[in-house]
């Protein structure tokens, strides 16, 4: 954070060092990166934007979307429910998307299985998401067809042309995309996600080197082998 006195001090020291000596060495650069990367200590989280049932549903969705596996934890471990709640508590429009979407999901689940999402079996939960994902793909194909068609000469000549009808699951598709993209973002921007992907950067060094073993790996598998 800007207000982290530790970071501020380091930066000031850096700036002074720069003026005086004209050179910041790689150790100093690395020091800043390490210091700014330190994680904040957090107390127990207090939910601000959602009812307990809503929050529970968000957490269950996040857990299904990015589940724990043998490499890393889940989106819940990475703080996705807190992330969604914090931003929703700052933005009514976003909160509205979740309130409405969660209610839609429960209504749809009741219709299909006679239960709300969190009370359904894991198989029923994933079955619901599979239906939404399939509908989303169809919807994407339909929109793409429409875009291309609208730009084409046919469209200019036959304005009565109609493409396929929009999916009746539209609200669910939209909501699922929101909860998915925010869960995915929360996961991959967390220390857990960064480690999962094995991102090696955001640090300073005095010399940039590309490792030979990486070069050999790619070349051997390329058409240039």
């Amino acid at each position, binding site marked *: 954070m800007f207000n982290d006195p530790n970071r501020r001090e380091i930066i000031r020291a850096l700036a002074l060092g720069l003026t005086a000596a004209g050179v910041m060495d790689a150790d100093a650069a690395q020091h800043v990166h390490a210091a700014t990367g330190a994680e904040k200590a957090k107390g127990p989280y207090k939910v601000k934007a959602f009812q307990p049932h809503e929050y529970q549903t968000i957490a269950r969705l996040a857990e299904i979307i990015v589940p724990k596996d043998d490499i890393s934890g889940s989106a819940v471990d990475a703080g996705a429910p807190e992330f969604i709640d914090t931003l929703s508590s700052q933005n009514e429009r976003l909160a509205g998307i979740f309130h409405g979407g969660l209610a839609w999901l429960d209504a749809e689940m009741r219709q299909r299985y006679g239960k709300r999402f969190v009370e359904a079996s894991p198989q029923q939960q994933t079955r619901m998401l599979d239906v939404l994902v399939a509908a989303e793909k169809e919807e994407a194909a339909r929109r793409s067809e429409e875009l291309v068609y609208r730009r084409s000469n046919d469209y200019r000549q036959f304005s009565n042309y109609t493409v396929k009808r929009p999916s009746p699951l539209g609200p669910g598709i939209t909501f699922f995309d929101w909860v998915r993209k925010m869960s995915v*973002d929360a996961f991959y921007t967390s220390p857990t996600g960064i480690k999962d992907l094995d991102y090696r950067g955001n640090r300073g060094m005095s010399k940039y080197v590309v490792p030979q073993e990486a070069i050999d790996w790619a070349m051997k598998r390329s058409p240039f082998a």
Partner: protein
Amino acid sequence: MANPFYDVVVIGSGAGGGTAVHVLTAKGIQCALLEAGPMLDPAKEYKEHKWPHDYDHRGAEEGGKSYFGEGKPFGFFSTTSGGWQLDGEPYTVAPGSQFQWFRSRIIGGRTNHYGRMSFRFADYDFKPYDRDGLGTNWPISYEDISPYYDKAEEFIGVVGSMEGIRSAPDGKFHTPPPAKVHEMLIKKSCDKLGIPCIPNRRAVITKSINGRAACHFCGQCGRGCMTASNYASSQVQVFPAMKTGKLKVYDMAMVREVAVDGNGKVNGVIYVDKRTRKEMRIDCRVCIVAASACESARILLNSKSSAFPNGLANGSGLVGRYLMDTVGFGLSGYVPALEGMPHYDTDGAGGAHLYMPWWLWDKHEKLDFPRGYHIEIGGGYGLPGVGSYHGQARRFGYGAEMKKEIRKGYGAGVGFAGRGEMIPNEHSYMEIDPGVVDQWGIPVARFHFKWTDYEWKQARHMERVFAEIIEGMGGRVTGLSAAQREADGISIPGTIIHEVGTARMGTNAKNSVLNGYGQAHDAKNLFVMDGASFVSNPDKNPTLTINALAWRGCDYLAEEMRKGNV
């Protein structure tokens, strides 16, 4: 109270204005610099080296603004720069046109965020009409500007290598960083296609100069560099010029007009102090307008007087005309050979380490479009951020399989962006909207813009070439379908942020606004030192040429002042 007086008043603190105050104060000339935004404080504002998880919003900004397209234009972590829309400072676009105008309101302007590609124009770029009968020749040649490219490169610092390619003249370079693995594959693929793929030329230093530290390879140039290891006019030119005691900076100063005396000689600048909303005036001997091409043209067109009823220095009627942007087209690909590679830090010196200059400059008879483009590269293991994996999440649905696929594909994607030359046309220009003023009471710009077949055909050529490069390295094209690209495959005008040409230079007062030094034909003590002076917009990103032209113009101006000619 008398108005403050300076020998030279410079309007705008970007590449042109920054260079002007650096060069002029070094010659001992007293300058004032007017900037429509606030002072920049790198120590407070830069987010270099921060992680997304250092913030509860992870970079999505308060309330998740970035999800609604309302966040900072280049992301939360990017340096303070500006935006496509500024509160209280609108612009309009004429019916039937599309144009987006990026404006910075901060010391350093757009040099704070720009890509730092630093390419010299080629010799032939200055004489385009002689080559294909399109557009207009510049009044200067490569030989005129070459010594100033040297000066600019040596001062701001540019990495690169000596290649001897006519479309991409060599310069004074710092040692470039080595190619990354995906770039090596791209180069191999380009070799097969006869496309040169060479070390990139970016305004980053790899050895310490002028109290600036060498690059430490964190790849975060766009966030603002705490150690000033890249070029931004704020850190590299304006701050040092302030230390000379010869420069006074007026920030939050929104210029309304450049004032002239009864003889049509410029004698001052009138601006609104944004903090007090008061109208203020600074008197001067010389005025340099460098507010960005369209803002400079707007100021000139709004500076009406009995001597200049159509706007200052607009006897030719060409102020605002021949507006150009760069032709942009991008294509991404997936390269299986990169899957599972041992990971390494690909951040590097920021941006790509290689690029492809235009290679068909002597083969135009085989092409269906004039001029050319260069290719910029993307790829590597980027710092995961908000939005990084939305596309893949949609593609793979959700769950363990999605997680596995994102992991597998991490670092296996490559991207190509073409940056091509647009031919100036009479349908692309800006003027003053007669019905709209901004919150400072200043009439706003209205844009007209049209791509022609020249630009569309060039973009289709880019598309074919990028696909060939991707397929040549065993990859496949990803993203939009071929039909979608065909329907939608050229950048929205303005969005490459290379707008130039609105007060072009030329040989006389009828065919141009300025002479080859950026001096107005109609007012000898008025200079324009930004992209407005460009006669054409070659595929080389404009900043380095703005630096060089401003430097050359200031050498000339200082000499004219010494002789008493202005």
